[in-house]
């Protein structure tokens, strides 16, 4: 054996993390879970590009950086609450600054009946037992390193429950704000969300920042939909330009439940978004729609995996990607139809625009089918704007940049047409146009 290489600064900076007190510390089972996950993470290190799930996202540069764990001053950092406003979104709100819950910015009074909405830190301090199952989850895949890190170090997040039969009419807004600190810091957020039998929930997940910073944020979100539940989940990601944001969502769908996801990713320097959906009950339905628009040196990696494992389930996924300047966009969309999941109907479309000779798009749609009463299809393309359409617009007097932005926005629009909240839909279009170079 060759001698072991010098530890990466990233890993090295975590050596002391084991001693840090987190909400819930002192609970034997929680301490064990956290310790084990940290030990595994430290032993395995960061995944490299030989790990299939990280094939197109190299973490070498990240490995060379040091992050302070958590922000001790998060509770007092100034932030203008007006930036949190989103048109068409006026319901309850939970706000986290650098991964820490901020009661002063949140809106938790007068919660509708049937809705439980609390910061995880409070639940962990009072009685973490109900979260034992969710927080003890094991992440075994080689590519799941950050989920293990998150499990080890997350001290805050969202605990949201909708009681059976409750219909929450106003959208619930979850805000994750990055604010500069004296140095680079890492925060870890864990969200546990459950929509009860026959219940309905509108969820808006908003990632934003107020000034440039280079923090690392990890989020692990567990979403469970009981039978007949309905979920509308909208994500607007506008993190700081040079920040690192690593998100992992898992979604379990019960019988006849329906979930619709709309994702708009604009910000971040290095962004990774994993979504693992499992259709566990018969006749469940999942629609995912997403778009990323990248420029500068942004690197964004979306990993979508949808598993059909019950009868007559359906999923439809439409994803668009735009990469300009020196950006790199990565998309993997895997559909798995398990043995016996007859009547599954799955489709996935991924189209990408490559707008610059220094940009890159890597896409990998996958089908893994183990049942025969199945309809499954996927398509993926990488191309550029239609020269003739550009010419048409310019011949009508539109400047080149404007024509290009207009066509690009039109390319992305297919993703949002199914978003029921019209005001929010318009806001998304504007945000998208504003982000185009």
């Amino acid at each position: 054996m060759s001698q072991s290489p010098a530890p990466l600064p990233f890993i090295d900076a975590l050596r002391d993390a084991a001693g840090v007190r987190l909400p819930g510390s002192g609970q034997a089972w929680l301490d064990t879970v956290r310790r084990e996950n940290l030990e595994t993470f430290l032993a395995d290190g960061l995944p490299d590009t030989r790990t299939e799930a990280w094939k197109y996202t190299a973490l070498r540069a990240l490995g060379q950086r040091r992050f302070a764990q958590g922000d001790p001053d998060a509770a007092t950092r100034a932030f203008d609450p007006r930036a949190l406003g989103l048109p068409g979104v006026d319901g309850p709100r939970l706000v986290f600054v650098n991964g820490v819950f901020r009661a002063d910015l949140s809106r938790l009074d007068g919660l509708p009946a049937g809705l439980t909405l609390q910061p995880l830190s409070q639940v962990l301090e009072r009685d973490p037992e109900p979260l034992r199952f969710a927080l003890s989850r094991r992440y075994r895949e080689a590519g799941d390193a950050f989920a293990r890190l998150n499990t080890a170090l997350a001290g805050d997040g969202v605990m949201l429950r909708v009681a059976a039969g409750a219909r929450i009419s106003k959208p619930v807004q979850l805000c994750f704000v990055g604010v500069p600190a004296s140095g680079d810091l890492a925060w870890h957020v864990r969200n546990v969300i459950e929509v009860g039998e026959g219940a309905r929930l509108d969820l808006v997940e908003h990632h934003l920042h107020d000034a440039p910073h280079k923090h690392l944020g990890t989020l692990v979100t567990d979403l469970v939909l009981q039978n007949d539940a309905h979920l509308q989940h909208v994500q607007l990601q506008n993190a700081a330009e040079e920040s690192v944001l690593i998100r992992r969502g898992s979604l379990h769908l019960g019988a006849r439940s329906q979930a619709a996801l709309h994702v708009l990713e604009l910000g971040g320097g290095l962004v990774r978004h994993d979504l693992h959906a499992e259709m566990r009950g018969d006749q469940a339905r999942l629609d995912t729609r997403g778009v990323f628009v990248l420029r500068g040196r942004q690197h964004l990696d979306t990993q979508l995996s949808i598993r059909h494992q019950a009868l007559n389930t359906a999923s439809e996924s439409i994803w668009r990607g735009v990469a300009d300047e020196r950006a790199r966009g990565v998309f993997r969309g895997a559909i798995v139809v398990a043995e016996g999941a007859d009547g599954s109907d799955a489709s996935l479309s991924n189209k990408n625009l490559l707008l610059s000779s220094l940009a890159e798009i890597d896409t990998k749609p996958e089908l893994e089918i183990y049942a025969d009463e199945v309809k499954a299809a996927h398509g993926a393309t990488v191309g550029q704007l239609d020269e003739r359409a550009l010419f048409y617009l310019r011949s009508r007097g539109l400047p080149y940049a404007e024509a290009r932005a207009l066509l690009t926005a039109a390319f992305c629009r297919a993703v949002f047409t199914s978003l029921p909240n019209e005001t929010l839909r318009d806001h998304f279009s504007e945000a998208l146009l504003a982000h185009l170079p």
Partner: protein
Amino acid sequence: MTIESTTVDSNSSSALRDNAEVAAALGRRYEAGFVTDIEMHSLPPGLSEDIVRQLSALKDEPEWMTEWRLKAYRHWLTMPTPHWAKLNIAPIDFQAISYYASPKNKPKSLDEVDPKLLEAYDKLGVPLHERAKLAGVAVDAVFDSVSVGTTFRKELAEVGVIFCSMSEAIKEHPELVQKYLGSVVPTGDNYFAALNSAVFSDGSFVFIPKGVRCPMELSTYFRINAGHTGQFERTLIIAEDGATVSYLEGCTAPMRDENQLHAAVVELVALEKANIKYSTVQNWYPGDEEGRGGIYNFVTKRGDCRGDDSKISWTQVETGSAITWKYPSCVLRGDRSVGEFYSVALTHHRQQADTGTKMIHIGKGTKSKIVSKGISAGKSSNSYRGLVKVEKGADGARNYTQCDSLLIGKKCGAHTFPYMEVKNPSAIVEHEATTSKISDDQLFYCRARGIGEEDAVSMIVDGFCKQVFRELPMEFAVEAKKLLEISLEGAVG
């Protein structure tokens, strides 16, 4: 042959068939499964530098060739066994394989070929002798480790085409071999290519000089006969500027309980405006219903479109082998060069196939087209794995990929793993895939018109594969169609 009542299809149409017909149908399951009993000369099982040297000495090879092999062998020792493919495979014991087996009486010309050998090829329907003249296809037959005869050499030599076994090429055309061997698939390219480079025993060599259109189809027939051996052949095809050639390859092996390894390397070089068409009908022994025996078919095939306006087209029909693991690829280096890949892969019982292609676009205006049809039946697993890569300089590159999978039965799997990596904004890359089963409506329609269930299935499958069969030379298309029918027998019901 006795037939158990349970193996006879219980539907009404088969009840009409008389027993003899059923027996005949079942008997032809794997027609090529016989063993030819002839005296063999072989190296003892095992792999070491000594074996590599012995092999090289046996073949009377020049020093540079021996060194080339040893270099590959030493590199192979440092490589880990690959495990990324979606395969369920027991570790291979490379020391249990004999790396060289040849018929003892080496023929000087085709007239001296052991009659038993000719009989073997006759049984396979490969025209080695008089019949060859009628068929008009030049054949190189490789029996276990060595080439036993190449037909039509004189006719080909008249136009300057060299078509001979690799061993002969090493002796007679060392300058060509040295220049091109390993230039497309380097010795250390991958685990099985490295192994092949160290121990390859024979194969075909084709050289088409400048401006020549090869006057006939060239073909190689590979046969594994001896037990406890592997077959490691190496094929090298060079088409100089403006040359055109169509090459066919077929393979079979006897039915045995052991797994035999076939690790071949095929290299194609197309210079300016050259055109190479490479067709394969792979029918190695697939193992029995329970997955016992069968060939491990781990092959590296790569074509290099070195010259501008060159074209390489791969067509494959894969019905055999217990495990198939191969990705015929095109490196589109020359401007406006074209790569094509047409594939039908059928798996039944416990066969596993992980196959696809790689199209690497480097030159400007390069084009590639991929059409892959996967059919899974029984408890088999069939994966398409492909890469389309557009490098920075490949302005105006264009790719179209279509992968369709057909499932027959509830216990099989069909998977698609396409990778697309695009670094040029003027490139267009498109991928489409579908997975479905034979619809009940289609079947009902055929049955209502008096077509038996099995015939209906093979008709529908034939239609599903048409796009690929169209690309095959005629004789091969007929064979391929027949092969599919045989391989699918018993898949329905």
